[in-house]
C-alpha cells in the first residue's frame, strides 16, 4: 500500500526474522544452532509438496477442516447492522484453532528426528492440541502450565493427562502463560538435543512467529473461498475481527487479507478490568511499549526499567503481557487496528452468543464478538464482518458460572 511505502504486507519477516523493528532471535547460545536448523528445515518444508500433502490429509481427516463459515443470522438481526459471519474453528478436533499449528510443528519435529515434545499453555487449548497430536504419533509430551491456570482450567488439565501428557504446574511469577513459556524455554535449553518446542502462538524467536502464522493461515484462506461461495465470486469481507493473546488465531485470519486494502482488520486485546494505569489488563499494544521477551521484540507490558508486568484477564488464553511481533508491526504501520474489550463486555457477548446462536464460545473469541457487538449496529446491512470463533467455551463454563454467581456444585 503506497501511502506507507510498503508494496506488500505479506513478505515479512526479513532474513533476520524481523517485521520492521519487531521479531528477531533473542535466545541463548545453547538454542541458537537449533533455531537456525529449525529455520532451515521449515524453509525446506514450506515448499515441499509432501509436507503439505501430509498436512492437508490430517487437516481434513483428523481435524475436520475446512471449518464452516457460518452466517450468524439471529446475531445479525439482533444487532441490526452489518452481516455477521463466524469462522467456526471451535468445531475443529480439540475445540480450537490451536491444532492447525500443532500438526504442522509435530510433522516438522518428526522429520527432524525429535522424540520429545514440550509446549506451554495458557487456557490449555494449545496443551490439549499438543497432547492430542503427540498421542496420535506416539511422542512423549510435556506441557508447562501456570499454576494459576491449572486451577482455572482444570478440565483441560485432566484432558491432557488422559491423552498421556505430563502437565507441569509452573509456580514462578503469577503462574500464568508468561511463566509457563519461561519454564518451557528452560526445559528446551536443558534438553535441546532430543526435544522440539511446539510454541502455541505467533511469538518466540524467529522462525516461530512466521511458521505458526503460516500454519494458521489456513483459516483466512478458507474464509476467502467460503465467502465467495456464499456471497458471490470475488466478494471479500469488509471487516475481519479476532481476539488476541499472543495472536495466532488472529494472524491466521488476517494474513491472507493483508494485501486487500478494502478489508478492514481489527484485533481485540483483553482489556481485563479496563485499560488504564492500574495495569489490570493484557492489552500490550494499547498499554505497553516495545521490549524483548521470549525470544522476540514486541510490545510488552513493562515498567520503566523493562521489568515485565503481570497482566490480568478473565481469559487464561489472553493473559499474556506480550503480543506476536507481526501484530506489533501491523499496529505500527497502521494496516491493522487494535482495540480492547473488558472482562464484563466479553461475559455479555459470551451469554448473548449462547442464547442467540446456540454456540457456547470460549472466553477468548467472546472478546472478538463483544467488539462486533459494538461496531455492527452502526454499519450498513451490506457490510460483511467475519469474526473468528477460534474456540469453544466448554472449558470456561466454571469460570463463567463463578462470575455469574451460579453454584456449579451438584
Amino acid at each position: 500500500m503506497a501511502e506507507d511505502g510498503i508494496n506488500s504486507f505479506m513478505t515479512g519477516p526479513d532474513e533476520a526474522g524481523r517485521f520492521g523493528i519487531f521479531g528477531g532471535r533473542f535466545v541463548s547460545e545453547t538454542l541458537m544452532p537449533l533455531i537456525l536448523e529449525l529455520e532451515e528445515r521449515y524453509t525446506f518444508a514450506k515448499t515441499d509438496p509432501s509436507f503439505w500433502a501430509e498436512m492437508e490429509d490430517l487437516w481434513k481427516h483428523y481435524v475436520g477442516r475446512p471449518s464452516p463459515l457460518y452466517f450468524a443470522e439471529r446475531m445479525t438481526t439482533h444487532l441490526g447492522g452489518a452481516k455477521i459471519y463466524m469462522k467456526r474453528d471451535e468445531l475443529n478436533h480439540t475445540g480450537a484453532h490451536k491444532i492447525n499449528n500443532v500438526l504442522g510443528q509435530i510433522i516438522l519435529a518428526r522429520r527432524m528426528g525429535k522424540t520429545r515434545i514440550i509446549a506451554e499453555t495458557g487456557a490449555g487449548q494449545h496443551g490439549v492440541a499438543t497432547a492430542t497430536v503427540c498421542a496420535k504419533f506416539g511422542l512423549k509430551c510435556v506441557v508447562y502450565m501456570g499454576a494459576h491456570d491449572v486451577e482455572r482450567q482444570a478440565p483441560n488439565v485432566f484432558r491432557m493427562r488422559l491423552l498421556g501428557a505430563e502437565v507441569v504446574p509452573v509456580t514462578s511469577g503469577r503462574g500464568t502463560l508468561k511463566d509457563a513459556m519461561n519454564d518451557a524455554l528452560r526445559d528446551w535449553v536443558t534438553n535441546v538435543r532430543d526435544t522440539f518446542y511446539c510454541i502455541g502462538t505467533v511469538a518466540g524467536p524467529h522462525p516461530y512467529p512466521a511458521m505458526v502464522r503460516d500454519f494458521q493461515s489456513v483459516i483466512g484462506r478458507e474464509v476467502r473461498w467460503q465467502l465467495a461461495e456464499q456471497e458471490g465470486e470475488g466478494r471479500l469481507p469488509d471487516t475481519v475481527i479476532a481476539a488476541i493473546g499472543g495472536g495466532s488465531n488472529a494472524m491466521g485470519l488476517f494474513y491472507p487479507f493483508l494485501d486487500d486494502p478494502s478489508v478492514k482488520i481489527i484485533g481485540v486485546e483483553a482489556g481485563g478490568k479496563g485499560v488504564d494505569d492500574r495495569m489490570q489488563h493484557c492489552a500490550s499494544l494499547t498499554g505497553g511499549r516495545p521490549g524483548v521477551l521470549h525470544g522476540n521484540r514486541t510490545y510488552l507490558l513493562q515498567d520503566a526499567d523493562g521489568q515485565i508486568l503481570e497482566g490480568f484477564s478473565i481469559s487464561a488464553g489472553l493473559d499474556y503481557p506480550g503480543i506476536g511481533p507481526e501484530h506489533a508491526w501491523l499496529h505500527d504501520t497502521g494496516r491493522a487496528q487494535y482495540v480492547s474489550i473488558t472482562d464484563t463486555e466479553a461475559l455479555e457477548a459470551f451469554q448473548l452468543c449462547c442464547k442467540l446462536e446456540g454456540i457456547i464460545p470460549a472466553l477468548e473469541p467472546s472478546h472478538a464478538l463483544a467488539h462486533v457487538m459494538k461496531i455492527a449496529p452502526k454499519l450498513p446491512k451490506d457490510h460483511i464482518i467475519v469474526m473468528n470463533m477460534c474456540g469453544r467455551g466448554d472449558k470456561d463454563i466454571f469460570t463463567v458460572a463463578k462470575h455469574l454467581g451460579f453454584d456449579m456444585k451438584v
Partner: protein
Amino acid sequence: MTRIDATFQRLKAEGKKAFVSYIMAGDPDAETSFAVMKGLPEAGVDIIELGMPFTDPMADGPTIQLAGQRALEAGQTLERTLQMVRDFRKADDTTPIVGIDGLIVVDLPPEEDSELCLPAKAAGLNFIRLATPTTDAKRLPTVLQNTSGFVYYVSITGITGAAAAQAADVAPEVARIKASTDLPVIVGFGIRTPETAKAIAGVADGCVVGSAIVKMIEQKRSVADILAFVRGLADGAHRA
C-alpha cells in the same frame, strides 16, 4: 584496556587461574548485597559478575530466579545497581565487574549484534559471549567474532544451578575454543564445590560460581559465612 583485560594480564603473569563469582545486585536487599560485594575481592575473587535482576530470566534456574524476585521485591532498580557500583568503586578501582566493565547478555546472540554489542565495544566495554556444548565448529567463529574480555563456556546444556559440571567433558571443549581464539576461556554453570572449582579451572583459564553462592544468601547465612564459602571456592580455583 578494560579492568577485565588488565586482570587477565596480571593473572597470566602470575600463572594463576581466574575465579569469578556471581551475585545478584540487591539480593536480598541493597545493604546485604553491597556488604557481600565489598568482601569478594578480599575473599579471593578476581572478577565479580554482578547480575541485574529481571522478572523473566530464561537461562536461570530456580535459585537465581528467586534471587531476582527477592531483589525486585526489595525495590532494586537499574539506577540502584549503578549506585551500588559507584559506592564500590570509591574503595576499589581495580576489581573488574562483569555487567559494568563488560557485558554478558545471555539472550543476545551474534545475530543481534548491531544494537548493543557493537556500540558497547565502541564505548570501550568488553562484550562477553557464551559458548555452549551446542556451539559447533561451523558456528564457533560467529560466536567469537565480536567477543572480548573472555569467552564464557557454559559447561552444560541447561540452566544455572542445575547439573554438575564434569572436567572430563569440559576439557576437550575448552581446548577446541582455545584453538580458535587467544581470549581466556572461563567455565561456568554447575560448579558448587572447591574441588569442582579446582578441577574445572584446571582445564580452563578459570571458573565462575553463581548459584551456590546465591543459595547461601537465600538461606540467610551471615555475610562472614558467605565470604568464607567464597574463599574456599577461590582457593580451589587458585590451586589449579
